[in-house]
């Protein structure tokens, strides 16, 4: 979807303001918002693409005005409601309201330690040969799906070059809608700044993205 999250190339947000000696979390609750997002992931309550889709589906004014972890907490609430983990009454009350179903097994510290350390790759066996090879010119499709996608708007319709064949990876467009992992070939595609931003832009800038095969076409 063309959401507020897709902000590459937008103007008006002002300068980047780095913070000296920035703490990992600015408030205690931010650490908890973060940890809750991780544990719900470990518990496999939903997949990461579905979570991203929910987050970017918020109305743009709300998305753009929430703080970073505020956005996570808001998304967690919505996911818990959608996946039947909590009711609106429970979120309002701040605790479980009987009768409720106990989870089959709780995520433990050992599970989390495992998640932090061990690889959980997104690569999958290839269903067939890759359509493009390194050096091929490709056009990012001009597509505007209503579902989750990871093809930024600023690249759509533009011609780039395959810089690398990454492998065959879980396809977010399908995964986010719980339609399965539907793995596709993934490429690093390199675009010239001129192609993306026009003749007046800096001639020495290039932008690379990862694009799944269904995002690309022969120019």
């Amino acid at each position, binding site marked *: 979807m063309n959401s507020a999250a897709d902000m590459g190339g937008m103007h008006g947000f002002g300068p980047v303001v780095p913070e000296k000696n920035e703490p990992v979390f600015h408030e205690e609750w931010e650490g908890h918002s973060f940890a809750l997002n991780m544990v719900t992931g470990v518990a496999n309550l939903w997949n990461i693409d579905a979570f991203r889709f929910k987050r970017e589906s918020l109305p*743009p*004014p*709300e998305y753009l005005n*929430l703080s970073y972890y505020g956005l996570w907490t*808001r998304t967690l*609430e919505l996911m818990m409601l959608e996946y039947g983990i909590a009711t609106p009454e429970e*979120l*309002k009350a701040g605790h479980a309201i009987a009768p409720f179903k106990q989870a089959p097994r709780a995520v433990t510290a050992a599970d989390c330690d495992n998640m932090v350390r061990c690889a959980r790759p997104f690569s999958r066996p290839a269903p067939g040969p890759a359509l493009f090879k390194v050096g091929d010119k490709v056009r990012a499709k001009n597509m*505007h799906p209503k579902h989750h996608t990871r093809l930024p708007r600023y690249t759509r319709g533009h011609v780039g070059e395959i810089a690398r064949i990454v492998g065959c990876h879980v396809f977010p467009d399908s995964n986010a809608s719980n339609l399965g992992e539907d793995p596709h070939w993934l490429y690093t595609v390199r675009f010239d700044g001129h192609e993306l931003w026009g003749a007046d832009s800096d001639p020495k800038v290039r932008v690379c993205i990862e694009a799944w095969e269904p995002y690309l076409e022969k120019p």
Partner: protein
Amino acid sequence: MAYDQHDHDRLELSETQLRVRALETVLTEKGYVDPAALDLLIETYETKVGPHNGARVVAKAWTDPAYRARLFKEATSAIAELGFAGRQGEHIVALENTPKRHNMVVCTLCSCYPWPVLGLPPVWYKSAPYRSRAVADPRGVLKDFGITLPKDTEIRVWDSTSEIRYLVVPMRPPGTEGWNEDKLAELVTRDSMIGAGLPKSPKDVK
């Protein structure tokens, strides 16, 4: 628990209200604005200029073929014949709806709107949902207004990016044969002249 846009708005509004009053006072004290001019401006757009102007134009185009021809050729002057002209209507283009083509007007970049014929735009016309979707999904927007057009009707969306202002001339409803202009004008709704609605049915006026 949910983000309450309403509470947020209320807070903001009271603050804006105070600032508007403060600014009006200062501008008046400094002699930059004439308070009587302010009152007149408000009165003009609250009571005088509005969609009833556009409705006169449409009703005349429905009954007077020569006028209709002038309207589609050179709308600004044809509309001025009826006494409507000026601010935010310096260059007007009339768009003809036909059984095969439906026109719809939007301003994605701000809120351009033909003031002399339609008055000031409604909130929905200026809202992000309309501005974002009218160009990409006009059929979906029409559904928000309860309208479904036949699938093979061409929809032409006009994004008002310059100082040209667009007025949709909807199709004359059947069953209005022999009606006079005044009576026909009652059928012409504001939304039908934006392309987000259709004229009223003759039943609603009889």
